[in-house]
């Protein structure tokens, strides 16, 4: 039963309070008609006898307390889905903006996805080769994982995301990834960058875009990732596709969450963000994974910019607690002209161990990754020491570690935006760099692997390295 009211009592920021309402349902969608005939959409945030609190998607400019009409639809927010969504561009609330026809489908899915039953999940363990050494070798991504990029303003996170979207492949499967792209509050230029790059490689035809740009209403952003993930889940779990979801920029999403919370005068948590932000973010990030018996998977690449480069800020902090690792970009490396400027030390992939090793990547993978980390960490520590005592004061051994840290950054981390390294390339490069360290220091790798892979790069075998 559809009911319409003309009893707006109060308009406060993005919130509208409607009086005399009879039984509005929680989370129900409402259509608002402004005095000038313009239509807006909203959602019920709180309902009680005779009163409904509605959050309006879009600006509330023009709303009044006299003529504005509010229609309660009795429906939750739903997205019509079909595989014709591929190649299409939608706005932040799911309306087509590419001049194409609307999506006609009998299947309309509620955008608040139900949780995947943990016992129905399958372990994500298919190695995705992104062609980027710092991801493949040291922070391996697997299908069904959620791995955010922690960046800061001015770093090339978009370039990196595009490179991943372009190169990502499960080896030997021949399957291509479908990209679902959700933009929240990014600029036109950034959105164009993504579209142009995906178009160049032909990937746009296998992409679905949901764009809420910087000049679009901020409250709309709260539904954009949910729409994108509903589409992603449909394509993956109903249509059997391998889906890569890029969500950018989660920081803008969280800001909108804070805006609504402040308008509702809730008790704020850290830095004014609501206490339920963890739960809210989890309802987005947890919509990734692999389900037993279904062919498709959802892999997430959320991007967020850390305010003031502070990794303890609530947004990266809560994200890190939910996602399965993080790729951290560093301004220092960027300044050194290293691309992608991944700081491997704070970066992590929690599902790495599942996707690597014999028959998946290579038997020495785990040891090499761990050894590269340890060597680089030690070299970085020594840099601090050198700053105080000078390089001359270091022992021979320490000098080698110091040099290793430099070559690790310049050769291993650094690569071209179009350079697509295979995992073997990355691991061999690792062994080559490790050959500069004394063999006795390689405690993280099994001795038999040093013989099998590392020896050809070591002294006396220099010719083997020519390969």
């Amino acid at each position: 039963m559809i009911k319409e009211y003309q009893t707006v009592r109060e308009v406060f920021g993005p919130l509208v309070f409607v009086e005399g309402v009879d039984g509005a349902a929680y989370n129900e969608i409402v259509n608002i008609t402004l005095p000038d005939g313009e239509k807006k959409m909203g959602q019920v945030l709180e309902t009680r006898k005779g009163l409904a609190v509605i959050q309006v998607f879009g600006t509330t400019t023009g709303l009044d307390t006299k003529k504005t009409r509010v229609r309660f639809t009795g429906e939750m927010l739903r997205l019509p889905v079909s595989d014709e969504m591929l190649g299409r561009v939608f706005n932040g609330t799911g309306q087509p903006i590419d001049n194409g026809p609307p999506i006609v489908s009998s299947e309309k899915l509620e955008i608040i996805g139900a949780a995947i039953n943990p016992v129905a999940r399958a372990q994500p363990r298919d190695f995705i080769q992104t062609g980027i050494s710092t991801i493949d070798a040291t922070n391996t991504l697997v299908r069904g994982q959620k791995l955010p990029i922690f960046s800061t303003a001015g770093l090339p996170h978009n370039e990196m995301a595009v490179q991943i979207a372009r190169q990502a492949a499960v080896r030997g499967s021949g399957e291509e990834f479908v990209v679902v792209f959700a933009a929240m509050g990014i600029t036109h230029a950034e959105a164009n960058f993504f579209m142009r790059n995906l178009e160049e490689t032909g990937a746009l035809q296998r992409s679905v875009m949901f764009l809420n740009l910087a000049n679009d209403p901020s409250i709309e952003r709260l539904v954009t990732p949910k729409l994108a993930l509903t589409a992603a889940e449909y394509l993956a779990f109903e249509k059997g596709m391998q889906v890569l979801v890029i969500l950018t920029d989660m920081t803008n999403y969280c800001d909108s969450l804070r805006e609504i919370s402040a308008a509702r005068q809730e008790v704020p948590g850290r830095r004014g963000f609501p206490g339920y932000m963890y739960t809210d973010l989890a309802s987005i990030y947890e919509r990734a994974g692999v389900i037993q018996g279904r062919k498709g998977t959802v892999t997430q690449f959320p991007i967020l910019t850390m305010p003031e480069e502070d990794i303890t800020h609530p947004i990266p902090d809560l994200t890190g607690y939910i996602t399965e690792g993080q790729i951290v970009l560093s301004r220092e490396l960027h300044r050194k002209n290293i691309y992608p400027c991944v700081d491997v030390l704070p970066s992590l992939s929690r599902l790495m161990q599942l996707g690597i090793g014999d028959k998946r990547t290579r038997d020495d993978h785990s040891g090499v990754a761990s050894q590269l980390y340890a060597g680089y960490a030690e070299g970085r520590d020594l840099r601090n020491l050198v700053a105080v005592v000078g390089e001359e004061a270091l022992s021979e051994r320490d000098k080698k570690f110091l040099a290793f840290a430099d070559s690790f950054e310049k050769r291993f981390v650094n690569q071209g935006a179009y350079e697509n390294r295979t995992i073997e390339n990355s691991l061999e490069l690792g062994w080559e760099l490790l050959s500069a360290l004394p063999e006795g220091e390689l405690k993280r790798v099994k001795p038999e692997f040093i013989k099998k892979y590392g020896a050809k790069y070591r002294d006396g075998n220099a010719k083997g390295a020519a390969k």
Partner: protein
Amino acid sequence: MGKIAKVSGPLIVADEMRGSQINEVVKVGDAGLLGEIIALKGDTASIQVYEDTSGLKPDDAVKLSGAPLQVELGPGLLGTVFDGIQRPLNAVKAASGAFIKRGIEVPSLDRKKKWDFKPAVKKGDVVEGGDVLGTVQEYNITHRVLVPPKMAKGKVESIESGAFTVDDDIAVIGGVKVQMMQKWSVRVARPYKEKKPFTLPLVTGKRIIDTFFPVAKGGTSAIPGPFGSGKTVNQQDLAKYADAEIIVYIGCGERGNEMTEVLAEFPHLIDPSTGKPLMERTVLIANTSNMPVAAREASIYTGITIAEYFRDMGYSVALMADSTSRWAEALREISGRLEEMPGEEGYPAYLGRKLAEFYERGGRIACLGSQEREGAITVVGAVSPPGGDISEPVSQGTLRITKVFWCLDSSLSRRRHYPAINWLKSYSLYHDDLEDWFEKNVSADFPQQRKKAMELLQKEEELQNIVQLIGPDALPEKERLILEAAKMIREDFLQQNSFEETDCYTTPKKQYLMLKAILHYYDKAISALAADVPFESIVNAKEKEQISQLKRVPEKEIEAKVNGIIKSLDAALSR
């Protein structure tokens, strides 16, 4: 029956609720969503709903159940995965597919399965609450069916052996029919005779834990740490290798894929003490972060009540809660919606009390009943402090109660030093209680050796400050030996790889021998230095390499290997 007056997230307020009780379970709306009354005021009740409340509206019906939130206890718990309110997730999957739909009602324990019940008492015996009535074999565990704790002393009027379902009558005691299944309110601790002192360690196979910061059976421990420092890996390792008979693992507000990992691994991993799959001694509670927040609040209580049930049978239970911060956040969210006056950082003022009540349900106890039996629950709680800063209320509230603190350190995890437990900031208050056990069961000088190693690590920290300023070469050679020895302790002893087959578990005996080899090197090196052996040949001794490989030496060869190293060191560094 009441009516909804207001809906706001997981909290609803209902009218016409006079006659209902606090903590009473209700069913809300047409879908019959499960909820619990958490506040009453005159006619109105505030209810936390354990499922998504989308679509609920004012005037929808609220039905009272007359009972508080309860769990079902009986055969069939082991090897099962439940959600926060004890719905078995496999049954939920059978009913609703891969995604969890709302309003699904499934019994916690399988009503159809028959269990072979063997009586332990006979007709005419007098029994009281807590006595063993009989047994059921569940995997490798003897499931002791107990007389319900509140039952008065009475004569067994009849008891039968044979195959029964959990709700069949198996006995009549003092005129009351008794079934294998008991129901217990999750918010009430199950009774016991008395608490007992701690004397046994929970052996975990983790070197830094067993040697340096052991937890007693029945003790409590906290693992706070920032994200990525290895809380979950540590918790899972404990669940795999700790020498408890029963494991209750609560995934509270954590990742779905992590639960999948446990589910995928545990059935294949073999319990070293019984040779059976780990899953057969494990009960899992999985409330992932995107499952309803109120059920997350309940999950901790569901878990500990199940743990108490096995404790009452006389078992040593280890309960892992990952993570208590998510539980506290659920409390905060509900409290905020109730518009309660917030305490620190928005958490309710009763957070500390709730934490204390939870951890106090652990302990080593004498079980109820006329028979002598003791059980224990060791509680290990992970804490996820925002930004890794443990000055926040959940960490502080936890540390006030727990006796062991494993401090996870992100600077260690960044250099891939795992387990990333900081050896200078962590502590255990059980050393004195457990000294006896280690002296008797491992070696008389185990405590001395530990203290000596700790001193070296402490000394290293002080020396590092100097090294940072003037470089290591400026130190006297004696002090450089301390740095060498401390580095060996860190890299060759404390670092342990959970993913490598021999290294993932080290017995206390092997731990002792590994540390012994390192300390022996240090002693020999000091005396060699005094005897004018050149410094370079001391620090380049080839035995160091062998010591660093000890991790990968299997248990049965370790003694010979260490003796060999000691002998070889004696010869090499004698002059």
